[in-house]
């Protein structure tokens, strides 16, 4: 009886040893290459940029592995502010300046830009508000009480949209103004279904436009420029990795890659790299 218990204990001990060894192996596998948490925006993720770009980074830096968390710009900066993300690639200049001023981040560098566009129903109603100037188009939408869908999620696109409304002096808050609280792709689908207007980044629109019954209403207004910057979090767990990524994405090689992205599919780049002249 005692021998039986003893044997059992030995077996259990061996089992525990094996499990510990297994855990150790799993742990060492998981911890190498070291993970870099990159907080970025849904619009960047939806455009497919990371899917295209990250393999090149992993090729150049085999000891790091990037995990992308795609949220709104506001949330991305918040994640970086509490150290849940190591580095942020965002497009919300005002929020970025506040972020750096509060001491949450260093080395904010320009990476690339694209532009926002105002899109609306692909019909005669949509053409009515087509203007060269975004403020005039928004005033037209408000006057017609045409449906406008706002991201409503504190993202960079939402922040820009609020700025644009502010510039018109109008307060959009009636029943024609819907706050979706979702990502860019979902909002574009919704605008298409409802025949509504919305502000979007060009990349997400181009990547979805053959599935959308929407057309561009306003483009090229300087107020619509969308600058992306990279910021390393001061509270980064993997500070070295974060620095490596920020350095890489502003490097000439990466900038070249960004400039090539989307040309094959859409005939024009989705993002214009501008780190060098920043």
């Amino acid at each position, binding site marked *: 009886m005692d021998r039986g218990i003893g044997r059992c204990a030995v077996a259990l001990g061996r089992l525990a040893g094996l499990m510990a060894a297994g855990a150790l192996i799993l742990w060492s596998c998981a911890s190498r290459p070291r993970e870099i948490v990159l907080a970025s925006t849904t619009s960047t993720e939806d455009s497919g940029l990371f899917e295209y770009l990250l393999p090149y980074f992993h090729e150049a830096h085999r000891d790091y592995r990037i995990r992308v968390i795609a*949220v709104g710009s506001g949330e991305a900066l918040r994640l970086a502010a509490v150290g849940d993300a190591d580095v942020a690639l965002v497009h919300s200049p005002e929020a970025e300046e506040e972020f750096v001023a509060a001491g949450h981040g260093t080395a904010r560098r320009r990476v690339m830009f694209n532009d926002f566009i105002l899109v609306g129903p692909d019909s005669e109603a949509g053409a009515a508000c087509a203007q060269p100037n975004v403020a005039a188009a928004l005033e037209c939408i408000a006057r017609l009480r045409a449906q406008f869908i706002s991201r409503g999620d504190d993202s960079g696109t939402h922040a820009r949209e609020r700025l644009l409304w502010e510039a018109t002096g109008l307060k959009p808050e009636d029943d024609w103004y819907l*706050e979706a609280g979702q990502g860019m792709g979902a909002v574009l689908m919704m605008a298409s*279904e409802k025949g509504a207007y919305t502000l979007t980044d060009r990349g997400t629109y181009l990547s979805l436009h053959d599935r959308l*019954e929407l057309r561009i209403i306003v483009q090229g207004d300087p107020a619509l420029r969308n600058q992306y910057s990279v910021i390393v979090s001061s509270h980064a767990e993997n500070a070295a990795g974060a620095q490596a990524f920020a350095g890489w994405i502003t490097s000439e090689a990466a900038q070249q890659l960004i400039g090539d992205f989307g040309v094959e599919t859409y005939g024009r780049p989705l993002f214009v790299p501008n780190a060098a002249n920043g």
Partner: protein
Amino acid sequence: MQIIIDAMGEAFRLLVGGDPYLWRIIVRSLQVSGLAVLLGLVVGIPLGTWLGLARFPGRGLAVALVNTGLALPPVVVGLFAYVFLSRQGPLGALGWLYTPNAMVSAQFLLAAPYVAAITLAAVQSVPAGLRLQARALGAGRWRALLLHLREARLSLMAAVAAGFGAVISEVGAVMMVGGNVAGETRVITTAIVLETRRGRFATAMALGIILLIIAFAANAFITRMQQAGPRRRRPLTS
């Protein structure tokens, strides 16, 4: 830890203070899920009863399908509802996508099989002899059926509560077909997702507390029904 305590305190303040944004979301949740379950009962109870009592070829398959309803993934139901209700879809002319109607439809699709499956089990748990006895004593077909359902009523009430608890806490289907539009299709679960993403933890937690209270109430109701069950059934089985 401090952030959790702060958020909890703020959450209670919001709830007690009657924050209009919060209450509008809660009321919309109750409306959508309540109506969906009600419609689910109208379809689910007759279906479950029929499957429980009838004998026909292919019944085994039908029962298996209905029982699958207990584990129907909300996102898949949401996907189908979306495709059907979108403008290119067969029901696009209704214009229901991104309206509460769409959310009720999707949750109805989730609730109906749920209710049917529980009704099926409840009806089968009543001894078959009861109905035969009732018939022998001169009760008509429908009277005997009603008596049968009366016997199963406690389990049926549990089915209502369980179905309601299941649909009010799902997020996949309502997010897809409702679109989380503020003041229109934003319900407790979709609002929690959004508010957490925005870093407004207090609002998210206030909604989470309400959802927990609703889930608790539904389960307390089920437990009471189940406890009461055997005691009341005794005189009729003896």
